């Protein structure tokens, strides 16, 4: 922990885990979906997010995050009105899941063409968050470091192609985790990088083109108040 973690983050109250963390979670979930517009997103609040959620503004914060707001955005307070005005297609539900993290949420996106994406994430304290499931893959993504998630077909050479591309650009890899559903099935590569600022569109599209098996790449970065 540094001085700016102790005196900070700058955030909309009242709770770092239920408000700031919820906004950050919404924002990361949306980043997993990508930039294309969606037909609808349903947020299932779990545990204490569901129980004390309204009193803590968790509902407002999580929708604000989905709309792209940071945890210190004054717009969080009126996010639900804003969402209605802009016809932002969201639904808010609660659900009970045995063994789920006490402050967590599931996001279910549905695209215009009918394809879907599910993201599960938890607010783990002090405004920090962790994405725990993306599209059925068990992950542990904090968004503290600039991160790229690839969705690809499980085949040889994907890790090498991504690593080589980053090496060519002199980007250091902080961590790299590979997940797959079945041999030759869908796979996902989560790469955390040492970079200043978020992964830009040029890098995202370059990684997407790095190997023919890569179907999609999502850039993730919490852009949090924890950085100077």
């Amino acid at each position, binding site marked *: *922990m*540094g*001085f*700016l973690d*102790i*005196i*900070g*983050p*700058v*955030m*909309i*109250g*009242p*709770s*770092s885990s239920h*408000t*700031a963390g919820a906004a950050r979670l919404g924002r990361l979930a949306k980043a997993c979906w990508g930039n294309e517009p969606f037909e609808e997103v349903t947020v299932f609040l779990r545990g*204490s997010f569901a*129980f*004390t959620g*309204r*009193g*803590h*503004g968790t509902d*407002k914060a999580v929708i604000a995050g989905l709309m792209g707001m940071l945890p*210190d955005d*004054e717009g*969080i*307070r009126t996010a639900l009105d804003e969402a209605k005005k802009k016809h932002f297609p969201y639904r808010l539900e609660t659900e009970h899941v045995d063994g789920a993290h006490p402050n967590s949420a599931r996001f279910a996106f549905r695209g215009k063409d009918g394809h879907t994406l599910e993201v599960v994430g938890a607010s783990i*304290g*002090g*405004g920090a968050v962790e994405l725990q499931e993306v599209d059925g893959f068990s992950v542990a993504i904090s968004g503290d470091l600039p991160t790229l998630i690839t969705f690809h077909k499980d085949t040889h050479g994907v890790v090498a192609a991504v690593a080589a591309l980053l090496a060519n650009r002199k980007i250091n890899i902080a961590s790299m985790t590979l997940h797959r559903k079945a041999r030759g099935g869908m796979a996902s590569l989560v790469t955390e990088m040492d970079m200043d600022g978020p992964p830009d569109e040029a890098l995202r599209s370059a990684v997407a083109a790095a190997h023919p098996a890569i179907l999609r790449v999502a850039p993730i970065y919490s852009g949090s108040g924890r950085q*100077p």
Partner: protein
Amino acid sequence: MRSLTEILEACTSSGESFARRALALSAMESGCTEDSIRKGMISRLKDMELSVQKALSGSWRGVLVPQEAHLFKEYGSSGGAFSSPFVLTAARISLAVSTYNAAMGRIVAAPTAGSCGILPGLLFSYREHFGGDDETLLSGLIAAAAVGEVTAARATLAGASGGCQAECGAAMAMGAAALVQMRKGSPEALGQAVALAYKSILGLVCDPVGGLVESPCIKRNGMLVSLGALAADMALAGVKSIIPPDEVIDAIGQVGRALPESLRETAGGGLAVTPTARKLVKDLLEEQPE
């Protein structure tokens, strides 16, 4: 940053102030330059000042707790108050910022959102009553951050792990350090202020009504500025804690771990389970549309 004693000893041998030494140490440990940390802290101070202005200029309330800081202003200016003008202003700011947090205002968690009133209360009351410039307030904020970082390393800053000692208690001890630093008291006095501050709230539980950051949090923010001020006064007067500051912080950590879960932010004990609290929560849940 793991030890106040180490920073204090380094101050003694170099003659530097606590804040100066702590900034150098933070730069060394984080790999950031002193200048970038200073700039970051200046921006935090500005955000904090903004939260004070907003909190005092609007009428804010929480879900359970109404607007009350303004009552305190009228009372404070009546001339009959027992607390000093400095403490009265600090308490008014602390109540206001903490209420503003409950009303979804934009605040600086210091060290947490639930304890976000105490440091701005002490810092900006200091400026109002003793006229500190930005540089003075910055030195206070840096000293406070260092005390917070040592507390995070040796104990915890999360109510869910250590009870309210770790949130409002930590903010108060950090604030006591800030006051001694802004007064240019000796590094030793600063360490003593931290020890005296923490000793006086050892065991403070986290028992929020309905799990909301409102009751008792808001009033506790308002109340604790007085202990922070008194800890600084005692230390500056030369009163010393028999137990040194690092060991007091270790005791905070040990007591925090010993607290039952019902008293660590779960709303399962203390004030949160009183008949009145239960009724408030029941009414609140019935008000919420499904």
